[in-house]
């Protein structure tokens, strides 16, 4: 018997005429790891809330169909029993912690369950040991890193001993290292602790192979429920994008065959070795420094930063003599681990903070003497949170506001910008009522109306689904094609590889590597999945298309979105 059974379930949020979930049928058996994916607005978060018993209890609305947990209708469960049976971790690490201390946070759920004190101590001790949170026990939760916060959220749910663990995009706000950490935990919870896990994710590279089954949602319906390999083939036929690169590569190599699709780099390399035992690669150890030098010498750099040092008031030394020259008319991605100084560099370039030593020349102009409020003429800056831009009542006013601040007149630039970013139908709406993707476009438009030669973006793909990412990539490509320069800081390696031309790798406040995106092939951690698959082989492979053309000698292929 299945642990969790949902039959013909349809759900309407209050005051909505469209169903948010329609005819849902799911069965999850004990110990299974179910991966749920889909674009934004596909209903996967609603599904997560439903599974966690928050719908309809917390959200209200109308619901039909049945949801049985361990054979009993969930409606009949007492609240307490329900919430200890199903635990959920949400996406935003910043908003789901309620207590000031780590230990108090773990205790919060246990206290709500009214457990006796001895039992609480035991559970808290066990879960802190298992998740290695003991060293952080007395920390102020606000000062934990994003990854630690998510781990704590996970710990405080596990302490309630759920039978089913739901994770709603737990890594969407995290950097790759922290995300890998969470996925490793998920794996060991499932494999070694026997937890039943329902993982809702958009970043599939690191979890696709863990799943027993993959569910794809679209428009509130389940459109696919199959094993990951099978689902990869099916998606390829339908032109759906929820396949990580390695699986996509092999699925498109053998679209009709019945053989299992390799899902990990290891399986993939074995498969490649078996099917195409290519001659070992001609060692192309082109020294990276010469690569970067030869290409930067062509154009006069747009940004010339030399010997930047920056120490924050509380004492963290974030920039350690960084020097950098960036050419105009390119899309440059800045990569690096957390606390490597990426955001600091972006802020220095934007002129929000000024270097304590060293200087930055932007189009030959020293930016040290310019106030932040004057920088907007030279550059546009898009922060991680588009809500930071929305102070006006309509989209159109939002754009005009920037122009007014700089005393510029609107010579049709607002209209043009709205057209380019598909904001025209929204021009009269309140930007706060828009979806997150639309808000980001409004924010982007509001900094681009001054037509700056340089655009800086901080983690622009965070929380975006594949479709929005593609739109953003295309738009940034247009800017570059029109002669603009785009510098973006990101953790999203696939995005960097798909759309970036030049890569800067930061570590500990200095540049450790800089050059065309091909330098990523040589990196250990920052090599994209395809590069790791093809490491040691011939060819210059970073993306699925490049891989396919290497293997097939350039055979046409249409599955890749880009």
């Amino acid at each position, binding site marked *: 018997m299945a642990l969790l059974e949902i039959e013909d379930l349809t759900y309407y949020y209050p005051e909505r005429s469209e169903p948010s979930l329609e005819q849902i049928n799911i069965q999850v058996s004990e110990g299974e790891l179910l991966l749920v994916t889909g674009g934004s607005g596909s209903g996967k978060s609603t599904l997560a809330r439903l599974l966690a018993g928050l719908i309809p209890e917390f*959200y209200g609305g109308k619901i039909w169909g049945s949801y049985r947990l361990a054979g009993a209708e969930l409606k009949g469960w007492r609240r307490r029993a329900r919430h200890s049976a199903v635990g959920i971790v949400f996406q935003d690490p910043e908003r789901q912690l309620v207590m000031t201390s780590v230990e108090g946070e773990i205790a919060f759920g246990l206290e709500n369950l009214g457990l006796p004190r001895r039992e609480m101590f035991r559970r808290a001790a066990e879960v802190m040991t298992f998740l290695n949170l003991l060293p952080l026990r007395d920390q102020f939760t606000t000062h934990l890193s994003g990854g630690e916060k998510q781990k704590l959220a996970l710990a405080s749910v596990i302490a309630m001993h759920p039978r089913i663990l739901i994770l709603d995009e737990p890594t969407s706000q995290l950097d790759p290292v922290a995300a890998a950490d969470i996925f490793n935990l998920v794996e060991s919870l499932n494999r070694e602790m026997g937890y039943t896990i329902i993982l809702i994710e958009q970043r599939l590279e690191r979890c696709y192979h863990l799943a027993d089954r993959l569910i794809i949602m679209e428009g509130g319906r389940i459109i696919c429920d199959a094993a990951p390999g099978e689902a990869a083939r099916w998606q390829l036929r339908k032109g759906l994008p929820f396949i990580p690169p390695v699986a996509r590569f092999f699925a498109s190599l053998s679209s009709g065959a019945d053989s299992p699709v390799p899902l990990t780099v290891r399986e993939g390399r074995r498969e490649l070795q078996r099917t195409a035992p290519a001659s070992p690669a001609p060692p192309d150890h082109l020294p990276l420094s010469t690569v970067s030098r030869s290409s930067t010498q062509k154009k006069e750099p747009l940004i010339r930063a030399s010997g930047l040092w920056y120490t924050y008031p509380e004492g963290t030394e974030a920039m350690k003599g960084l020097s950098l020259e960036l050419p105009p008319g390119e899309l440059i991605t800045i990569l690096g681990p957390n606390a490597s100084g990426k955001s600091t560099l972006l802020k220095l370039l934007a002129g929000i903070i000024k270097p304590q030593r060293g200087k930055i020349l932007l189009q030959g102009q020293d930016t040290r003497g310019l106030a932040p409020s004057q920088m907007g003429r030279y550059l546009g800056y898009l922060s991680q949170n588009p809500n930071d831009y929305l102070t006006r009542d309509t989209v159109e006013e939002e754009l005009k506001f920037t122009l007014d601040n700089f005393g510029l007149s609107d010579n049709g630039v607002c209209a043009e910008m709205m057209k380019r970013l598909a904001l025209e139908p929204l021009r009269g709406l309140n930007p706060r009522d828009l979806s997150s993707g639309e808000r980001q476009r409004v924010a982007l438009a509001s900094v681009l109306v001054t037509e700056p030669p340089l655009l800086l973006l901080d983690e622009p793909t965070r929380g975006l689904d594949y479709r929005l990412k593609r739109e953003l990539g295309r738009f940034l490509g247009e800017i570059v094609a029109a002669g603009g320069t785009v510098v973006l800081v990101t953790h999203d390696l696939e995005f960097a590889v798909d759309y970036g031309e030049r890569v800067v790798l930061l570590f500990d406040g200095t540049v450790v590597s800089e050059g065309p995106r091909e330098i990523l092939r040589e990196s250990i951690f920052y090599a994209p999945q395809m590069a790791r698959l093809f490491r040691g082989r011939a060819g210059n492979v970073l993306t699925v298309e490049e891989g396919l053309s290497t293997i097939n000698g350039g055979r046409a292929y249409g599955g890749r979105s880009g």
Partner: protein
Amino acid sequence: MADGAADRWIKMGAAVLCTAGLLAAAHWQLPFLLQHWAVFTASLLLAALVLFFIRFERSAISAREVGVIAILAALAAVSRIPFAALPGFQPTTFIAIVSGYVFGGQAGFMVGAVGALGSNFFLGQGPWTPFQMLFWGLAGASAGALGRYFPGMSRAAMAVFNTLWGFLFGWLMNLFFVVFFIKPLNWSSFLLAYGASFPFDCFHAFGNLLLYLLLGCRIIKVLRRFRLKMNYTGG
């Protein structure tokens, strides 16, 4: 939020305070009374503070309400950060008032009180903490009563209310200093102490007034919209 009950408590508290004040005035011996009643006044104020918290403890409160009150309190606390261009200007009173006006007296009180307590964990607790908690809380609670009995208050009236609280907060805060430390308490010393802080009080009140005129209606609208959203999404 249990508005009726909260208001009853506010009324009771106000009644007790007024009686004490009248009694003092009736004797026309304010200095003498206050000299001996320093401890009494302080305990009265602290008791009022405790009563409000007991009231909150006893009310049934949903997760949403806890979330909203906490975030508004945090906002009230954060608004104490001196803003580069406006030294010494702290719109905490304003936030407590608009919160109370929209979400009711109890919520307003908790926003002001918890905002004061929470911010002092960072800025440093002092003898001022309980008084800030009480008076910012009272600003919120009184706005709650206002919102309950005069829901359609005109903008001008609300502006006056805000200005009044700007003065009142400063005056009440002075009270604890005066009562405890100024011993030959007579009218001239009383007025001197209050006169010394008058410019600051004016600034506070004027800032409150301007902030309300510039922002009050918009913020109240945002909060009302949110309250509606909060209610119809169940819970």
